[in-house]
């Protein structure tokens, strides 16, 4: 899921984008550890509309452990529509759950940057209130 570099209107104060597609194709995205934190936001569409939903839960798992383990202390910051991650080098699974929507809709999670990248989508229109993406930190 994710990996579609669609560019909704980024916030005026947002900085440059930090993630890129993982060159190995194994993970959805790659980010350098020096570029942390990774900031993400919830959008109502690809054009950056306000979302009709809010985050319920963000959980990060390290995929380098077998079985994968939950990374404590993440996200480092979280509001109803944004969250930030600060992760060391490794491979991660980021699970995202939203609160129920008043009506059927799809919401998108984008990197919060000048030219955003879509991280994942959440198909609440078919009762799937969760989404995820994988991230390699190098």
């Amino acid at each position: 899921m994710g990996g579609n570099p669609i560019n909704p209107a980024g916030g005026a104060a947002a900085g440059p984008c930090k993630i890129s597609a993982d060159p190995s194709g194994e993970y959805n995205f790659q980010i350098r550890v020096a570029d942390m934190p990774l900031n993400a936001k919830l959008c109502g569409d690809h054009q950056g509309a306000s979302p009709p939903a809010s985050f319920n839960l963000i959980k990060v798992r390290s995929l380098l452990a077998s079985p994968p383990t939950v990374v404590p202390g993440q996200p480092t910051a979280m509001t109803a529509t944004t969250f930030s991650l600060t992760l060391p080098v490794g491979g991660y699974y980021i699970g995202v759950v939203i609160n129920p929507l008043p009506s059927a809709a799809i919401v998108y999670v984008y990197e919060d940057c000048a030219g955003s990248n879509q991280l994942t989508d959440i198909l609440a229109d078919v009762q799937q209130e969760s989404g995820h993406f994988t991230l390699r930190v190098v």
Partner: protein
Amino acid sequence: MMSPRRLAAHCSFLVIPVPVALLLLSALNAEAAANYAPPPACSEMLKDLKAGKIAIDDLRYLSNSPVCFWELALQSQPQTLRSTLRAEAAAQKSAATVQIGAPSGSNGTTSAVTKPNTPLSLASEYGGITSSTSNQTMTLQTTLDGIPTALAGRGVVPYCISPIVTIPGCVSWKDLQRLNRFGVGVTSNTTAASQNISGTAAPAQGSSQQASLATAGSKGPSLSSVFAKATIWRGQYKLPAKGPEGSQIESASFDLAYGLKDIPLAPTPANPPTLMSYTTWENYQAWQKCMKDEFLQRFEAAKTDTARNDLFVKYYGQIVGILFRGKGVTCPADNVALSDKDLIAPFPPSDEQAKLIKSFETYMAATSMFEAQLAQMVLAAAAPVLSFEYDYNTPVNQPTTSTAKLVFSKAGLQKRCASSSKKTEDSGKKPDDKNTVDAAAKPMATADSKDKKPNPCANSTDGSCINQLTGTLNAGGNFYNSAPSSVPGAGAFRDAQVGAELDYAVCTSSANPIWSFMANATFGLAYYYQDQVSPSILKVTPGMSVSGINIVGLASTTSSVFSKKGPINFAQFKYGLGTGKNVKFPIAFSYSNRTDLITKPLWSAQFGVSYDFSSLLNSSSSSNTSAADSKSP
């Protein structure tokens, strides 16, 4: 008295609806089978894909489309099917909107007020509300869907579990719901207060005299009433605004993605995925590639929804065979389509398949979707119902009458009685949850908890939830089937009647083992008012005594006795044991200012026992897994 032969004819009234119902189902299904469409979630995803709202990855990774996959492939699982039908049975047993025995106008009933819903049940009662003599009656009643539902629950009749394949002769949930709006029943007198016996006396021997007696009346049961009920309006039950538990969803979602290897860490033959064999995973990979390379191309080129639906069945549908039948991928997929055998043929799932099914069902349970659907059925008993009922009454020694009445009922104030609630509520929490984002998200979680009051019955499918308060109203009229011309002041309209009942259900099942056996109980207060416009009439045979009634001074030519008309005020306190169980024991004590014939106040008692045949839906199979069970990973 009615002869057994005539009674048998009346009883066949109950048998007729079964083939009629099956015929109706066949007609309904013939229409549905002609037009295939993907299941709802899949259909929505295809629309989103066409509109560019989602990417093909959302469809080709099963962990991204669990609801679609579940709708397509896993609703056919026997435990899922049984969960659905059991939910309905649980609703019937727990609802105070269901008529336990004979309708209120019948002789020998325990009910002063008729309830709008009809169960598939057999009841034996002793009592009577306005009748001057108490009778014992037996009532057999059912909704038109009662027997087809029971047969589907046992697997005797196929249940329509897939919208995209034809299952010959199957019954669908929608069809059953349509038939559920109609109920029929028959009540017969199983004993009368006395029988008419005639005989010849031998010459007296002192103070003794021998007589040869012969039964003049019938010893068999006589018809008391036949009734039919139709639901005119059924209110929509609104699900509580309970959001799903975030950590449960996230865990279930991760387990799926990890088990299917939809995330990095490619498996090896020595280290296969947890939810499938390595060979199956290779086929799954090939299927994903086919979905991306070929399905998407054809899908985008397709001109019509029909063509897109066809592509979905041929390409996406192959995943069922890959995961459950050991099939490979056919890409291009020109001649591949799902068959009912792919979906419903019984198979013993391998360990991996069982885990796969469990993982998807855990996800569905976590999202509250399937649970919510079941709970909606269970709690639909709380929705307001308006029914029309027609009773054909044949009271003993009285002219036949017809009663037409409107019945309204509304239940509410849900409560979970079983002690399993805590287990259900806590089942989604795992030890690792405490060191996750919850700490960071605490302010949000706190805000959420203010808005959300988890309803312990929101996901109840096990019959442990009851509606504590149920109110029922009746209003109707009673008519003589032929106007009694020989009785002064009598017309065809016999009486107007209104009734109200308030039931309060209490949980007793967890108190101790004895109460646990007896289950939950219902206390009811009922008031019934009857305004007699025409007097009650008693038919007598000149020169013979009336069964159960001695009237002094009747002329030898009298064939009709009528009483002084007047209003009847009837109040009843009722205790119903067995709420939520198959067997119920209603006991009632009543006071009325008069009865139909007796113009003096009197106290009376009514009691009965009824057996709810919804237990026929229970399977003895050990693989019978409830939806609630599936919540525990």
